[in-house]
């Protein structure tokens, strides 16, 4: 126990407190015998600018107890500011929640409060103050992926005079899989690539030159082609989605169709698009299909059939696109069951109409388009693994807690942009890139990250170097310290959730201000306080 600093409890005793008035004198007397609380100060109406009365306890550790409103009125923040208290030097307890304990019980509020305050006082006595300066991050940014989203983000960031390294996944900057930059935004990728190449703040590297991404204390390092390590404060993960080849021999997927249209081929004859064949086609894909069908129809006299199970209209503008397509003479057929006979590219389609139950048949279509399952390329999966990102079926980044911003990944320094989050069209990608840039600026602003209160730390003597923590950390915040042969915490990434501490087989990891012993002691106290 830190003997130089005493523990002071501050209690708000206003009549609006849900517990009613506390017998302050009785509490004083009871706490005078306490070992963990040295002094009690009772404030009347603490929420009304009473923090100035606390000047004489500067330099002590403080335990606040009051109604929930005190937190909302900013009393604790102001008091902490006035007294210069860091996260490890104060604790707040909500008196209201002690109501749980008082229900149908003979104990008085004073009994209950004494118990609570004593156990918390003990926790506070063991805790260490957080006095680290915020970590300064590098202001360089690494962007993985040179599709529409990567380019947009790169250009927005270079406009802010941040230096950007862009990694191209393919030798050609227009990856064939980048549907967003295809017919929905013709020519945009070429234009943006031109701009990026012209910008002094953007450097472009091919993926094959990229070494492994390493997480370090102040961000990330990567070396290109074995050259000197380059340092980054943050990474934007913006890989293009690629589409799997069509599942039938002789059929095309959307990517192939797009590139044919873009190359200026005219596509003629009877063309059949089949949607919803396996699972449900996403509305974004439906939009790509309709855009392509429209483009074909504009260029030639093709006979276009679109076979689908459900009409998906839940995207802005999609209903209008359907209407337009119908006006142009594109035939939509809803089907219930569909049989596709494929004789090396000679197709015969037998289907059944759910409305009438009538069978229909399409003989020898000139071209069958089957949108493939879209996902991430192998390179993108590799990079995701090296960053500790969670992927969902190698398709999306892990669906994440609603509490976070949409672009945040499980690694705090990595932001996910564009269609790696799900199917997106060109305007969606643009919006997404812009919000990623905003989130990134917020991360780099203030030149660092405020340390979390329950930061994990590794006891070097106890660590068995078994790397369990590397495998379980949800934030990729654990790395190997090769020199000392122990695990190491990246403080800019650690969020203080405590999973590593609970999983560590050697009990070498502790959370600041929340060590296993103090937690057990606190719980023990809590269980037996009211006897």
């Amino acid at each position, binding site marked *: 126990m830190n003997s130089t600093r005493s523990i002071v409890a501050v209690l708000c005793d206003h009549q609006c407190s849900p517990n009613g008035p506390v017998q302050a004198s009785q509490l004083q007397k009871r706490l005078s015998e306490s070992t963990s609380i040295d002094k009690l100060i009772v404030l009347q109406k603490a929420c009304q600018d009473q923090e100035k009365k606390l000047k004489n306890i500067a330099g002590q550790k403080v335990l606040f107890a009051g109604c929930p409103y005190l937190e909302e009125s900013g009393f604790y923040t102001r008091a902490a500011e006035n007294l210069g208290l860091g996260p490890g030097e104060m604790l707040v307890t909500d008196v209201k929640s002690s109501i*749980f304990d008082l*229900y149908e019980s003979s104990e008085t509020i004073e009994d209950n409060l004494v118990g609570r305050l004593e156990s918390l006082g003990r926790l506070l006595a063991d805790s260490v103050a957080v006095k680290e300066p915020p970590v300064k991050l590098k202001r360089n940014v690494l962007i993985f992926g040179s599709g529409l989203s990567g380019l947009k983000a790169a250009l927005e960031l270079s406009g802010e005079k941040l230096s950007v390294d862009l990694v191209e996944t393919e030798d050609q900057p227009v990856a064939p899989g980048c549907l967003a930059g295809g017919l929905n935004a013709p020519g945009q990728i070429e234009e943006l690539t031109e701009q990026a190449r012209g910008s002094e703040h953007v450097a472009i590297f091919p993926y094959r030159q990229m070494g492994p991404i390493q997480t370090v204390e102040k961000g990330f390092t990567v070396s290109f082609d074995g050259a000197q390590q380059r340092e980054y404060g943050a990474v934007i993960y913006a890989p293009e989605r690629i589409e799997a080849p069509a599942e039938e021999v002789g059929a095309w997927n959307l990517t192939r169709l797009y590139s044919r249209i873009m190359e200026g081929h005219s596509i003629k004859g009877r063309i059949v698009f089949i949607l919803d064949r396996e699972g449900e086609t996403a509305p974004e894909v439906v939009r790509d299909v309709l855009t392509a069908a429209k483009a074909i129809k504009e260029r030639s006299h093709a006979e276009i059939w679109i076979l689908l199970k459900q009409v998906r209209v839940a995207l802005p503008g999609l209903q209008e696109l359907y209407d337009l397509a119908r006006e142009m003479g594109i035939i939509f057929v809803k089907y219930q069951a569909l049989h596709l006979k494929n004789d090396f590219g000679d197709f015969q389609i037998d289907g059944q109409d759910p409305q009438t139950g009538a069978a229909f048949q399409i003989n020898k279509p000139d071209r069958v388009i089957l949108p493939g399952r879209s996902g991430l390329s192998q390179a993108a999966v590799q990079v995701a693994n090296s960053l500790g990102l969670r992927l969902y079926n190698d398709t999306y980044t892990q669906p*994440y807690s609603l509490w976070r911003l949409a672009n945040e990944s499980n690694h705090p320094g990595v932001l996910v942009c564009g269609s790696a989050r799900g199917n997106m069209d060109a305007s969606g990608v643009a919006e997404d890139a812009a919000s990623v840039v905003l989130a990134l600026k917020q991360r780099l602003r203030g030149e660092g990250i405020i340390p979390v209160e329950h930061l994990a730390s590794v006891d070097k003597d106890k660590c068995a170097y078994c790397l369990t923590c590397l495998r379980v950390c*949800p934030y990729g915040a654990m790395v190997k310290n090769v020199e000392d042969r122990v695990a190491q915490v990246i403080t800019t990434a650690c969020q203080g959730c405590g*999973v590593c501490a609970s999983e560590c087989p050697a009990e070498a990891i502790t959370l600041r201000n929340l060590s296993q012993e103090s*937690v057990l002691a606190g719980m*023990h106290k809590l*269980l037996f306080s009211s006897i």
Partner: protein
Amino acid sequence: MADSILIIHCAEGAKKALARMSEEGHKLPPQFKTFELPCTGSVNEVLLMENLQNGSAGVVVLGCQKENCKHMDGNLRAERKVARVKKLLSEAGVEGKFVEMIFTAPDEGKRLHNTLLEFSQAAEAKGKRK
């Protein structure tokens, strides 16, 4: 108290659910004690076992709804640990002690209250039988 039940809850969804519960005026019986951890992922077998050994009748781990843990899958980790301790207790033939994992959404005060009450009633019934 010998029959006290410890609720270990996370500082995210479960804390909000408890707050909502008290906001709605649902009160818990006195044997319930609450303890906050940053995430239920930081609960391990040692914590559960030592609490039971120290005399609490039961430990309830209260985490966020599945798929909505702020720390990715801390609640699922806790569920596995609770299952393991449960198995250990039943295999060792320990009676009158229980551990349970509850997932709660932050907006469901009444449902949470009912579930917790069921626990205390079940524990009481068990105690009386003995």
